[in-house]
């Protein structure tokens, strides 16, 4: 047999290759020069030197055509004239931003200014895409911005620190504490004889039982149209009414706010880090969580919770169940605009309920004309079908819900500067100056977030006092504003769109409807709200901890769901806690304590810098 056949030659080549790889591990490691460190001391930002910026950022909804940034967008032109810069934006749709940004970088094209999450930022550092920005420089050129970060979320700084060197500027949106307000079907409550919103766990249970048994949807329909129907038709409405549940939920985004008011009633939040007498503690394994889960299980068994709550998505199936009259209660709202009578959600609820009533009337034999006239004189029914829930009181008197708060509107986002700025470091200083100036120039800030008065928005009187309202009818969130470089919704655009700088408290008060301020005061009192110690940014924790946290959160989600659904009996709670800690809970706790210490240290470092430049402010 010939010795040198194709097979033997290929195997030989492969072996040689492996030998070479293993033999010379450090073949050419020395001659790679480290990333040059910028010597910030002699970098000057000369205002009349024109600078050009390449930027990439997640647009609001790049998918619809009218959201693409126009060449001469109002806010863009304003910023360019004001700061003698040219801004070339590359907008990427938010859903695929992370993946696409990674691939764009992988292909070697680096933007001057990028928006990066912690995990992306860390890998960018490893590949040398972004340059370090010492805290001193930030505090020197943007002291008031730095102070706002300290005030609202000083835990943000640590997220962009890699091996002691800082690479990013935390993004802040105004008052970042979003409440998880609930709403009830007002007509259902009325149909079962409740004229006010239930305010305690016992009342919740009573209402849910009535929802379950007494066909509230059919009854509320009969209350409105009963007198027009004969007995037999009325019976038909009752018999044919679909089964009803109290509420649904979405386990996948449990962390973002499912059942938070139920857990809050037991003074605990399952996915929050809290300070318990000086020590960091994880909510998921607290005694309060056990009680809440036990209660939720009894509700599930009683049929109050829709079985789909395991796989539904909050913005999708959960919401459409509420619209379709399948569920009667939902606690997931966080914006004033979402519950405002003229808001699109409430209007949609009315429209859909009207359609359903119309279909039912037609099916009961009414003619089109009759149905429409009946609906007409009952139009008051569809104005506002929701009434905001209070934060219910628990058996031991606690109230609370999770404040979905985060540093930076992009849940842990940071401005970072690509290595392209190495030749012109003054770009960084120019950008910091822009942020600082906009922060303190109210008129400029309003113009680049809400737009020009009487052009993009105007003052209008409403029963709650003067309100800045967009040109289109109230609350429509059209993407045409994006094309002008402005935030897509006037209603909660409390930060610049092209340059993410937050509005200070007094600006928000002056420019936003009093109802909104009142709403926020009513639902975010500190004693009710239980804000996570790390905001939503524990993914900024050191790498091995954050992947472990992700996995343990999934584990906790599955276990808590099994408890609620009944696959796991509540008596198993103790070995669930033991298992949780053994599998990762303890390791995470140690990691987070260490991380918390680092956060405090970094915050102090920034504090010291601010104080240095405080009295020397520009």
């Amino acid at each position, binding site marked *: 047999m010939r010795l040198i056949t*194709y097979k033997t030659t290929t195997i030989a080549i492969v072996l040689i290759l492996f030998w070479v790889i293993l033999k010379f591990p450090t073949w050419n490691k020395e001659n790679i020069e480290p990333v040059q460190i910028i010597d910030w001391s002699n970098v000057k930002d000369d205002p009349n030197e024109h600078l050009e910026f390449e930027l990439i950022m997640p647009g609001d*909804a*790049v*998918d*619809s*055509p009218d959201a693409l940034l126009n060449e001469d967008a109002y806010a863009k032109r304003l910023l360019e004239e004001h700061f003698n810069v040219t801004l070339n934006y590359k907008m*990427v*749709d938010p*859903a*695929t931003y992370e993946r*696409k940004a990674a*691939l*764009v970088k*992988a*292909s*070697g094209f680096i933007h001057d200014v990028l928006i990066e999450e912690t995990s992306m930022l860390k890998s960018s550092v490893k590949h040398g895409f972004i340059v370090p920005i010492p805290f001193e420089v930030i505090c020197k050129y943007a002291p008031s911005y730095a102070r706002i970060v300290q005030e609202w979320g000083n835990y943000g700084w640590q997220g962009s620190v890699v091996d002691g060197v800082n690479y990013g500027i935390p993004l802040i949106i105004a008052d970042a504490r979003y409440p998880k307000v609930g709403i009830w079907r007002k007509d259902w409550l009325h149909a079962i004889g409740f004229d006010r919103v239930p305010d305690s766990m016992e009342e919740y249970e009573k209402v849910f039982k009535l929802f379950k048994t007494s066909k509230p949807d059919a009854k509320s329909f009969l209350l409105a149209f009963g007198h027009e129907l004969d007995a037999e038709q009325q019976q038909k409405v009752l018999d044919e009414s*679909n089964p009803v549940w109290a509420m649904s939920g979405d386990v996948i985004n449990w962390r973002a706010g499912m059942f938070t008011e139920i857990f809050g009633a037991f003074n605990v939040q399952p996915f929050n880090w809290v300070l318990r007498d000086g020590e960091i503690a994880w909510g998921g394994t607290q005694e309060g969580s056990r009680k809440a889960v036990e209660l939720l299980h009894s509700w599930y068994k009683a049929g109050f919770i829709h079985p*789909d709550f395991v796989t539904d*998505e909050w*913005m*999708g*199936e959960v*919401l*459409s*169940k509420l*619209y*379709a*009259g*399948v569920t009667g209660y939902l606690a997931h709202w966080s914006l004033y605009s979402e519950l405002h009578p003229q808001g*699109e*959600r409430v209007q*949609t*609820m009315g*429209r*859909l309920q009207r*359609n*359903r009533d119309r*279909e039912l009337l037609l099916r009961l034999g009414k003619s089109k004309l009759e149905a429409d006239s009946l609906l007409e004189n009952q139009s008051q029914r569809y104005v506002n079908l929701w009434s905001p829930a209070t934060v219910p009181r628990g058996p031991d008197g606690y109230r609370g819900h999770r404040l979905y708060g985060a540093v930076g509107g992009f849940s842990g986002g940071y401005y970072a500067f690509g290595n392209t700025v190495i030749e012109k470091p003054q770009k960084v200083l120019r950008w910091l100056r822009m942020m600082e100036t906009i922060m303190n120039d109210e008129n400029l800030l309003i113009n680049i977030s809400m737009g020009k008065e009487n052009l993009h928005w105007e003052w209008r009187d409403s029963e709650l006092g003067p309100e800045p309202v967009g040109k289109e009818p109230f609350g*429509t*969130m*059209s*993407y045409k504003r994006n094309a002008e470089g402005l935030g897509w919704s006037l209603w909660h655009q409390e930060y610049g769109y092209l340059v993410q700088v937050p509005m200070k408290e007094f600006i928000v008060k002056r420019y936003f409807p009093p109802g909104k301020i009142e709403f926020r005061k009513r639902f975010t009192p500190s004693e009710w709200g239980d804000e996570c110690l790390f905001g939503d940014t524990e993914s900024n924790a050191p790498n091995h901890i954050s992947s472990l946290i992700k996995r343990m959160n999934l584990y906790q989600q599955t276990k808590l769901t099994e408890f609620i659904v009944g696959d796991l009996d509540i008596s198993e709670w103790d070995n669930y806690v033991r298992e949780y800690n053994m599998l990762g809970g303890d390791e995470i706790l140690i990691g987070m304590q260490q991380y918390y210490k680092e956060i405090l240290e970094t915050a102090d470092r920034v504090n010291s810098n601010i104080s240095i430049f405080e009295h020397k402010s520009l």
Partner: protein
Amino acid sequence: MIKESFSSRLFDVVNILLLLILSFTMFYPFLYCLVLSLSSEAYASQGGFFLYPRSFDLTAYEAVFSKPHLLTGLMNSILRVLISVPISVFFTALCAYPLSRNETPYRRPLFLFVLFTMLFSGGMVPIYLLYHNIGLLDNRLVYLVQGLMLAFNVILVRNYFQNIPESMHQAAMIDGASEWYIFFRIYLPLSRPILATIAMFQTIFHWNAWFDAMIYMTSDTKVVLQGFLQRIVIQQEWQQLRDIYVGLPPESIKAATVIITVVPILFVFPFVLRHFSKGIMLGGLKE
């Protein structure tokens, strides 16, 4: 009449029943989707099992068609199939012909050279960087280059060429035909069945490919229909529709998108049936 044993008749009844149920399961998901996409808001989120739409409501389709990228996606997909499939079938045959001829020098290593590409792949990063250096990123040519000569298809065509009687080749040689002439005038026309089958495989491959669009295309106007569907349905991007079709249940939007993507394939279905039912001889792939 020869009396069949009871068990064999029972077997017939059970067998037919079983297969009918199976074909119902093959058909029902698409029916369910159609029904869901047509049912009005109220019924869509009721869930449950239905065979006919309780009400006829096209808002879901209206919503999906309002998305600009649906039409560009459809155009991209159709162009991709019309251009890539014929070229890839030709190149597959061209690659298979020398491999099927015994007198090709180094025939065996060349075959291993082709076969190896089926097993070992460099992985996404090197391919991505290669496309970047060549300038194929965000460029529709990628759709042509992807799956141009799949080793599996080459093997199928090579086997078919080898089943063509050697006398054909010899006769043509005697008449003085060149290898190119033999390939074009004799081997290609003779192997129409296998080429049609490969064309069918490639059409399905190119129509259903969504991953390359997702990875290599950055501008949305170049994404194929599957990419569009994937983003709408899997990555929950239907929320982008909130400004016009607020309150439209996600199920009916997803279902409508699926039906729109499914319809073009149903046109191709009868052709697929004709070619595939002739059957492809896969047994005994060895040369």
